[in-house]
């Protein structure tokens, strides 16, 4: 099968690759770019484990073809740390036990970031609704909700990040 060249920016770094048209973005990220932080939980758009930011907005990388991301700016979980320190949201997940197995966590983090960008001061119900885009089977969501609540004021106080290109 013929392959198509792809150019995109991932976590601020320009990347190029080549793949068949039918290849999913998540497979391209994991296999071609070796960014295995983004996980696959269902491949049908429900579990949210594969969520990344595409041009600043949360998107299911299992429902996109890699060729559709040509020219896009992608943020994956690998891009959240800054200067070797955990992003405030990551740190809050750690403090509040927002993860157990960690498999949903990358999708959860990026979904929460998107939520806090759109709604910097969400109520608990809004957090729960926003996070209902991602399934977690370990935590019962308690620690995750607490972490997002704790991180919200910190993110409001800090410069918005990652927000390289707001939609």
């Amino acid at each position, binding site marked *: 099968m013929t392959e198509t060249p792809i150019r995109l920016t991932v976590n601020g770094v320009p990347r190029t690759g080549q793949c068949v048209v039918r290849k999913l973005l998540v497979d391209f990220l994991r296999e071609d770019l070796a960014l295995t932080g983004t996980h696959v939980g269902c*491949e049908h758009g429900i579990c949210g484990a594969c969520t990344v930011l595409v041009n600043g907005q949360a998107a299911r990388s299992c429902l996109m073809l890699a060729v559709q991301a040509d020219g896009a700016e992608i943020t994956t979980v690998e891009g959240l740390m800054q200067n070797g320190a955990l992003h405030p949201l990551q740190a809050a997940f*750690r403090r509040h036990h927002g993860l*157990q197995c960690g498999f949903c966590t990358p999708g959860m983090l990026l979904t929460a970031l998107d939520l806090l960008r759109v709604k910097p001061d969400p109520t608990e119900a809004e957090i729960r609704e926003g996070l*209902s885009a991602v399934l977690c*089977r370990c935590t019962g969501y308690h620690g995750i*909700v607490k972490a997002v609540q704790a991180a919200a004021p910190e993110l409001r106080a800090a410069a918005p990040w990652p927000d390289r290109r707001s939609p």
Partner: protein
Amino acid sequence: MASGSWIGRSVERVEDGRLLTGRGAFIDDHPPVSNLSHAAIVRSPHAHARIRGWDASAALAMEGVVGVITGRDVAASCKPFGVGVTAPVHYYPAATDKVRFVGEPVAVVVARDRYLAEDAAEAVVVDYEVLPAVVDPEKALEPDAPILHEAVGSNLAGHRRLVYGDPDRAFAEAEVIVRERFRFPKYASTPIETYGVIARWDGLDGVLTVWSNFMGPFIMHPLVARVLGLPENRLRFIVPPDIGGSFGIKSSIYPYLALIGLAAMKLGVPVKWIEDRREHLLASSSGTDRVAWREVAARNDGTIVGMRFKWFDNVGGYIRSPEPGCSFRPTGNFVGPYRFQNLEVDASVVMTNKSLTGPNRGYACGHLYFETERMIDLLAERLGLDPVEVRRRNLIDRASFPYRTPTGGLYDSGDYAATLDKALVLAKYDELRREQARARAAGRYYGIGLALAVDPSVSNMGYVATALDPQFRAKPEYLPKSGAVDSATVKIDPLGRVIAILGTTPQGQGHQTIVSQIVADELGVAPRDVTVVDEMDTFTRVWSISSGTYSSRFGSVGTSAVALAARKLKAKLVEYAAHLMGVTPGEVEFRDGGVHRTSGKATPYSIKDLAGRAHWNTESLPEGMEPGLAATAVFGFSVARAVDAEDRVNSSNTYGFIAEVMAVEVDPDTAAIKIVKYVTVHDAGTIINPMIVEGQIYGGALHGLGGALYEELAYDDDGQLLTGTFMDYLVPTASEAPDIEIAHVVSPSPLTTLGSKGLGESSSMTVPAVIANAVSDALRPLGISITELPMTPTRLHDLITRARSSASEPRPPRSGHPRPEPASPTPLQ
């Protein structure tokens, strides 16, 4: 930090750094070998069919295809898996003659990449002769039901009637008898990471290495070795450091270890297979669906004198080990927290054309306590007593521990009444009852439920033999089974750094963190100074037949092994330091990360100091001391005994306790259930990390809630799965998760090194019961009693509508299941 101060603290997890930054090491992440080929599994579209033949020629001609193996190869090269019953059920890694459930593997296509493998999988032709299917366990036992396994002759995989005490007499003398029939659904905790297997065959040395996110090895390593005809020391299981959740479900991955292993052996290439979600829902594993009949015999004051259990457990198309654990796993705690001595259990294990079952969080205890706790409420209702009072009247007394149950369980410690009281106080039970009175007066449907459960942890392998007749077990060639063992190694390297090595396979439970806390306390260092390695590798770890991370073992047996290994090492350090000081070991003590003279002045020796000397100058060791600073401990429970001739078995080794109170309000128009209050109190002995413990409780509770309200692997009458995606199989999201108030009572276990007990399954086993009791209590004015789960809005709405439409006519209370059944039909065998 003084020693002894890390246990009991919510230390942040060492696992989190890598998992939060995308650097976890899950099975799908880092290929352990290069040049991998990728497998796609061809699966049966039929629930029941005879296979007339396979034709892989078109698939073999397709781009990138390396090879295909079919059920024919499986039949030629494999033995069937051992099963836990005497019925001749031949279960292979893929179908060899018939398919017996939709999704059963029939062939494996291996290609250059997964996309190409899936293309070719569609081109494999399997010629089926479709047969009638049966999915209902009651129908499967009817005389004209289609037979799945001709060699068995019926769909009954096994049946046992277990009698403890004198139930007939208890029932004859009872002042009141309550009977009910229940249905428990087939659901699965569906970890977000699916199964994954990578296999490499080294033909020259004859070694098969299999990497997978398996929670074993336990009994499955010898099983797979036998199926593939490999000596045990030529079959290597390796489990990567991170597993994306399991909840028991990944214990059933082992048929794929054999199947993908066989593909690698046959095709001569390393093969990788990652299950997709549809495959997972179709064919991984789930708990059993069960039809149960219950009877309680009691006195008018609410004292229970006996119970009868009867059930049909539906294990699907074959019986896959460790089933029939669905029926027997809780044998030792069949009576729960209650004192009654007379019990009859009539357990039938039935095969139907559904997917196979296995351990699912709370293995069989969700079923057990749903039935028992509903019965207690029904008894209370019949007697006009408060459900709290009936429970109190029957609880095992604090002074009776260790308590031997009539079924052979040995409850190690507990204070059930105090735990219940704590839950009632926290929930403000009396205030809830007042609120209920106000709500009812206003025409609202408000109810309060309770549930109590003995939470068994660390299965004793011996329980599986309860499925076999005592006469069979008495044969001289029968080998009794018992045990619950885990090992750990603690070592100190030449510069004084501590490494702990485990053979557990954690799936999110934070073993590395917990072990670092334990070792820190034992050796007087900080947890961050302890490196913990826990990757199972059957070639390098010390393991035994019960090794693995299942049945909430780590909190009891894994922690004990680690503490013992650290203590062994500490004893060596003490002896060595005393030798260096020229005194006897009795004159020194270990504290604050070093060895000190108990009296008199002498410079203490730090661990670093001792490690340096011991490693760099072995001449300094006392005469006869083994060089090196490493200690391995293998911890086992002496209370893990084989099942006796009277079918009594201590099926677990430590037993925690759970008391829960829930208040709900039901909207009669939408059938929506609102959880107003939910309190759960746990006694898991000594708590090592409260944060991790509470995380297990939150997660377990939501699994229970999923099974009680939303989740069901539903089939139509032809055996087609109706809930094959996450669109249809409804997993609770953050919006469905209730507020939970958690509290603890601590009754340290006398059997474990640190007094801790397992708690991983926790409220998954109580929530179905507590919410069914609460909803039944709410809907009592309508005469509705919940006897069937899940309480989906449709099902509940149906009950409410029917109850309301006939509200004007006087009638007996309506059961959640429309068909009235005889309480205890004639036993099957």
